[in-house]
C-alpha cells in the first residue's frame, strides 16, 4: 500500500511544483501538501506529491540504533 520513496529536491518550480531526483530519474512532483521545502531536502514522494520532509537527523539516529540494538540483545 502507498508506495512512496524518499527523493532529493533539485529544483523548485512555479505553482508549488518541484523537480525531484532519484539516482538520475527525474520527475516533477507537487509540494502542495508540505511547507518550507528547499532545494537539497529529501521528501517522501507518493503519487506525484511530496507527503513529508524526511528528517536526516532522525534517519541517522535510526541507522545508529539498528547497529546498537542488533549488538546488545
Amino acid at each position, binding site marked *: *500500500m*502507498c*508506495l*512512496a*520513496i*524518499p527523493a*532529493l529536491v533539485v529544483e523548485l518550480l512555479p505553482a508549488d511544483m518541484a523537480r525531484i531526483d*532519484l*539516482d538520475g530519474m527525474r520527475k516533477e*512532483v*507537487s509540494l*502542495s*501538501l*508540505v*511547507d518550507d521545502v528547499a532545494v537539497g531536502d*529529501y521528501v*517522501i514522494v*507518493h*503519487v*506525484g*506529491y511530496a*507527503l*513529508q520532509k*524526511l*528528517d*536526516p537527523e*532522525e*534517519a541517522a*539516529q*535510526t*541507522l545508529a*540504533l*539498528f*547497529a546498537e*540494538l*542488533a*549488538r546488545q*540483545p
Partner: protein
Amino acid sequence: MRYVDEFRDPVLAQNLSASIALEAGAGFGYRFMEFCGGHTHALSRYGVLGMLPSNVQMIHGPGCPVCVLPIGRIDFAIRLALEHDVILCSYGDCLRVPASDGLSLLKARAQGADVRMVYSALDACKIAADNPQSQVVFFAIGFETTTPPTASIIKQAHAAGLKNFSVLCNHVLTLPAMEAILNQPGGVPLDGFVGPAHVSTVIGSAPYQLVAQRYRKPVVIAGFEPLDMLQAILMLLRQVNTGRAEVENEFTRAVTPQGNRKAQALVNEVFEVRDAFEWRGLGSLPWSGLKLRAEFAQYDAEARYPEMHFVSVPDHKACECGAILRGEKRPQECKIFGTVCTPDNPIGACMVSSEGACAAHYTYGRYRDVMQEGS
C-alpha cells in the same frame, strides 16, 4: 538511493535477525499483524519472512486498498466508462482487478472504453483540462496516504473552474479497519501491530494510542525497508516480553506524533466520513470510508451520476479472506488457494494485488509449503 540502500544493509539485517531470534527465545509463539500491504509485499519480496524464527508469525492485514475495494465499486467505474463514455483515469494497481461479468478495467478498455492509467491525480486533472469535450472521472482509491493528493486535485480543479472533472471516491480509513479486526467476537490471537509507514506520515503516530490503550496491543510504526521491518518486529517482541502495550515509532525520519497537519486540514475541507463503507473481505464497516462534502458535489461522480449506484457483489463461498484478514487462517489453509484461486485468476480479495496476503504467499513464498509437504 540515499535513505533507501542504507536500510537494506545485509549485515545489519543478519544482526537484527539474530537479535530477534534471541528475544523470541524458545518460548510460546508470537503473532504480529503487519496492517499494511506495503509491508506484506516487502516482507515477502526481500525474503524477510525467512529471516524470522519459526515462533514469530506475521499475519498479513487488510491494508491493501486494491484488495479491500469491493467489486461493486469497480463495476461502477466500468459502467461509467462503457455506458457514459467518460474518460476513466485510474492508478495502474486497479486496472486488472476482476469485476462482474468477466470484466476488468483493462477488459473494458478492450471493449472500447476510454480507460487511462495515471501515475498521479495531477495527470487525471490534466487529462480533463486537455479534453474539455469529455467527462473525466478519476477512480480514487487508497488509505490516508493517497487521500490528500485527491483532495488537493479537487481543490485545484475547483480553482481552475474545471467543469468536466469528477472523482469516484473509494478512500478508506486505517483505524476503523484495525478496530474491526480487534473487535472480533471472542477476541483475536494477535500480540501486536506493525503500524503503517506512509499512512502515518499523514495521520501521525498519536491516533494509534487507541489500539494500545483500549485494546492493550503494542503498535510499532515502521518504514517499508527490510531493516525497518526487522527493527519493528524486534521492538514489538521487547514490548510483549516486558508486558508493555505502547505506540512506538521506528519511522521517525518521516513520522511525527501529529503527522502532516496541512494534509489533514485539506482532507477535512474536502471530505467527510461516510456512515459505512463496504470492505471486501471484512464487510460493511461503520465510519470507515470518505466521501466528498456537499460543497464539492460537482466533483463527486456519485452525485453527478445519480442514476448509478453501488451494487454489492458477494465473494466466492470458499474464499477465506475474512478469516485471513482477521489473522485466523493462513492463505495455504484456503481450499482453493493456488488451484482455482491464483494471481492470474483471483477469486478473493487477498489474491487481487501483489500486496494481498494470498498473492504475496503465492508469488513469493509457496515454495516453502510444497517443500514441507514433500519432506
